[in-house]
């Protein structure tokens, strides 16, 4: 047993996090920055954070992840990192020539109190930012929130830094997809286009972190949200923020600054959440939902019905990020599965309430914890076993020890391909998730069935 020291007996811990179910803000900020066209994320701190964040994203996406760092030394840590950042901005625009630099802070620069607003202003005044180029920034202290917070802060920093209001509406809807896979962003764009609503999506990592092999390395592929579009978000009809944790802040910022109204929706994972997304799209866009979308919806429903007996009443343990888990829990409940233990490392009492509310409709109370960790999840599983585990790659240690069917879902997925290319949002994504779940459950059934009940057709 690899997690042999995990006891069944649960002792309340107040100080020690064991096997975290979250990571730190900057990695989310870096991911968000990569979804801006021609953007180089920049980590303002010592170079270790940047190396870690790049490695984490690279291992997950299996794609190049470029980001620069202010490379603090002890001196900079004592006297402030202004000189490092100004120099970095100059070097980056000279050597790498991005259109945008998206600066985020780290624990270090936050603790010493570097003020990005003032430093970027100084760089601007000193002529270090070439004409037509931009620097956006966000404060992302890792001792607050989680990687999800960092994503949200960077998206907010991008719109507050770049969006403008020309006074003329662009008749588009802003869509903030949240921290989902590049494949998911692609799928959200496809669905939105099918419904016939003109949109701007920010950020958009599709084509950036699931790019092709061409024989040429392009540091800034022609993908991501163009700066002109981001500027134009201030002129949009409204904003759909997918996920309270990931996306709402940026949407609200657009609302308060430019009076662009916003709606915060759940991430469109599973039947109902996708329904709400499509329905909202149709209403705000004044269009009607086409047959083609109905067709996909029907396919998902069909598959759910066909395999219902295998989903029914299966207990599931889940770990991941709040926005995903809320929508996923709802989807599993729609499949008549039973999410029993649900953990996120990201703080937020609202998360616990929402999950409980969803399960209450089915008449039971799950174990749910925000600011939890995977050690707790494992202990819960030991106390009340489940039929399926869903979460990031780290779950495989639990799955192996407890001999559980396991579906990889969330961040990071370090050991299987696919998530970059195939969505789990929308109706198609719902089908993919259902396929994975049923595949795992039936593989297990096939593995364990006695010879006399081993079935050909399932």
């Amino acid at each position, binding site marked *: 047993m*690899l*997690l*042999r*020291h995990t006891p069944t007996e649960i*002792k309340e811990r*107040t*100080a*020690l*996090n*064991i*096997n*975290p179910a979250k*990571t*730190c*803000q900057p990695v989310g900020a870096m991911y968000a920055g990569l979804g801006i066209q021609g953007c180089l994320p920049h980590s303002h*701190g*010592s*170079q*270790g*954070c940047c*190396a*870690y*964040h*790049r*490695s984490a994203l*690279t291992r997950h996406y299996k794609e190049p*992840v*470029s980001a*620069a*760092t*202010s*490379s603090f*030394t*002890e*001196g900079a*840590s004592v006297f402030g990192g202004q000189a490092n950042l100004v*120099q*970095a901005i*100059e*070097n*980056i625009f*000279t*050597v*790498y020539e991005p259109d945008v630099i998206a600066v985020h802070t*780290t*624990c*270090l620069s*936050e*603790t*010493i109190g570097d003020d990005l607003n003032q430093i970027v202003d100084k760089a601007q005044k000193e002529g270090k930012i070439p004409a037509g180029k931009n620097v956006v920034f966000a404060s992302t*202290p*890792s*001792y607050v929130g989680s990687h999800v917070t960092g994503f949200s802060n960077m998206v907010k920093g991008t719109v507050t830094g770049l969006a403008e209001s020309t006074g003329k509406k662009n008749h588009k809807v802003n869509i903030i997809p949240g921290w989902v896979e590049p494949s998911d962003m692609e799928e959200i764009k496809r669905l939105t286009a099918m419904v016939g609503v003109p949109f701007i999506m920010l950020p958009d990592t599709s084509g950036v972190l699931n*790019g092709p*092999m*061409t*024989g040429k390395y392009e*540091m800034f592929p022609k993908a991501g949200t163009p700066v002109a579009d981001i500027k134009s978000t201030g002129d949009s009809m409204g904003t759909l923020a997918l996920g309270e944790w990931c996306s709402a802040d940026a949407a609200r910022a657009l609302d308060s600054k430019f009076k662009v109204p916003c709606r915060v929706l759940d991430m469109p994972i599973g039947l109902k959440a996708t329904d709400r997304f499509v329905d909202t799209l149709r209403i705000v866009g004044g269009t009607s939902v086409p047959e083609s979308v109905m067709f996909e919806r029907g396919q998902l429903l069909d598959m759910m019905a066909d395999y219902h007996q295998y989903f029914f009443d299966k207990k599931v343990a889940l770990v991941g990020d709040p926005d995903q888990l809320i929508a996923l829990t709802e989807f599993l409940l729609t499949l008549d599965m039973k999410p029993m233990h649900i953990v996120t490392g990201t703080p937020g009492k609202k998360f616990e309430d929402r999950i409980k509310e969803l399960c209450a409709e089915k008449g039971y109370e799950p174990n749910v914890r925000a600011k939890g960790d995977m*050690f707790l999840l494992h202990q819960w599983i030991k106390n009340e076993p489940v039929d399926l585990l869903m979460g990031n790659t*780290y779950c495989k240690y639990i799955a192996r020890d407890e001999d559980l069917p396991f579906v990889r879902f969330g961040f990071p997925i370090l050991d299987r391909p696919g998530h970059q290319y195939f969505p789990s949002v929308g109706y198609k994504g719902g089908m993919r998730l259902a396929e994975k779940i049923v595949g795992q459950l039936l593989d297990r059934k096939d593995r364990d069935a006695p010879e006399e009940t081993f079935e050909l057709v399932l």
Partner: protein
Amino acid sequence: MAVEKKKKVMNADAVKEELLKKYPPKVARKRAKQIHITGEEGNSEIMANVRTIPGIITMRGCTYAGCKGVILGPTRDIVNITHGPIGCGFYSWLTRRNQTKAPSATSDNFMPYAFSTDMQDEDIIFGGEKKLEQACLEAYEIFKPGAMAIFATCPVGLIGDDVHAVARKMKEKLGINVFAFSCEGYKGVSQSAGHHIANNQIFTHVVGEKDVEIPGEYKINVLGEYNIGGDAFEIERILEKCGITMVSTFSGNSTYDQFATAHTADLNTVMCHRSINYVAEMMETKYGIPWIKINFIGAEATAKSLRKIAQYFGDKKLIDRVEEVIAEEMPAVTAVQDEVFPHTKGKTAMLFVGGSRAHHYQELFNEMGMKTLSAGYEFGHRDDYEGRHVIPDIKVDADSRNIEELEIEQDPTRFKPRKTEAELAKLAEEGFGFKEYEGMMPEMDSQSIVIDDLNQYEADKLVELMKPDIFCAGIKEKFSIQKMGVPMKQLHSYDYGGPYAGFKGAINFYQDIKRMVTSKVWSGMKAPWEENPELSATYVWE
């Protein structure tokens, strides 16, 4: 059809000029000193172990990574608590691929666990010592480890938490060894500072803690081997076969007790000179254990290292046994060598990794007839490039001065010279060198390009200009290189393959590299309509 790569032979000076062309003048001046072309008359110096320029996309990591990740990471039975916000602990959780084999299903193995104090803003404002203490108590309560270590991350140093005071208090309270590392990421200029800090603390708090005689005739420590991909298992196999007892390894597949008894060995053998030479030096001063540089990467290098160990002990029985083992192991190696040689001969490689691997792995490429065009370290110092003889000339700058140099004295009771004056004289006569490391550059062909702290821009340019057949570095470099159609081998993680050490490791490496340089994957780059775009529809139908 395969895409034929054009082999442009560009001379080293022209390449260097190209690499520097785009930089602002100040950056170019500094980088020029870190790019060295070997074999130039009157110039053998490279600038290394200096700050990375802000904004330059470096391969380097930080002091915490060097300390917690590299040196302490592979030890299975110490509970390692990261004191800081969650990220640092999260990223160093199982990502370095250190394998470990606990003797039984119940023996301590904490490696699959990440422990962190997960500092919140109130801890940053009011201090985190209380939380750290509580975390230690909770860890002890649940895991009952034999030893605990605390690692400080960036904010901890700034807010002034005294991790060492907490460690002392916990040591007293819990009755187990608890020690701490001030390895904040901003210290030094790279991981290297973290190695040094780890060496100091392990030496101070653990080495010599247990005075037990380890049975064995020829007792050595293997220093600077981290058991990536099972390297340590292969080294252990070979040493055992030779009858050599490994008292400890620093730190692949290691345990606390190994560190604690390391002072009882009779020879220190140093693999990764950069990361661990400090402990070797300190053990020599305090306990009288001499050290030699060895290398188990490459079959020839492995044989040479074994012979050197045998020569040190000077015992005919061991010398003969080592020869027997080499004779037994080599045929399988040469068989595979012969098989891959026609495919790999004349191919070219580039290596940018670590503080010793970029040197060691050239051995393996040589054995396959491949030439290393360019190489460099992420965090090496001048001595790793030029040899230890330059150590007295190395300027100690402000960043290095911040890393403590311990004053070590002879242990009053346990210091014991391992060799008599006469024995040492005899070894010297035989040409046996202690504490010798010639570094990477003297062993490279003239006109090779050696680059310290290579960055992304230079890496991409190098590949574009020189089109090597294979490029070796880490995960961050992997995919941009591959997008250019050049196979990329990770030499930190081995791309989840390995082992590559020792005899069996050499065989694995030959096979992996052959697979990569002959792969057909890269030939699919052009679609048929790109190869022959001119065909018209009418022509096809005629």
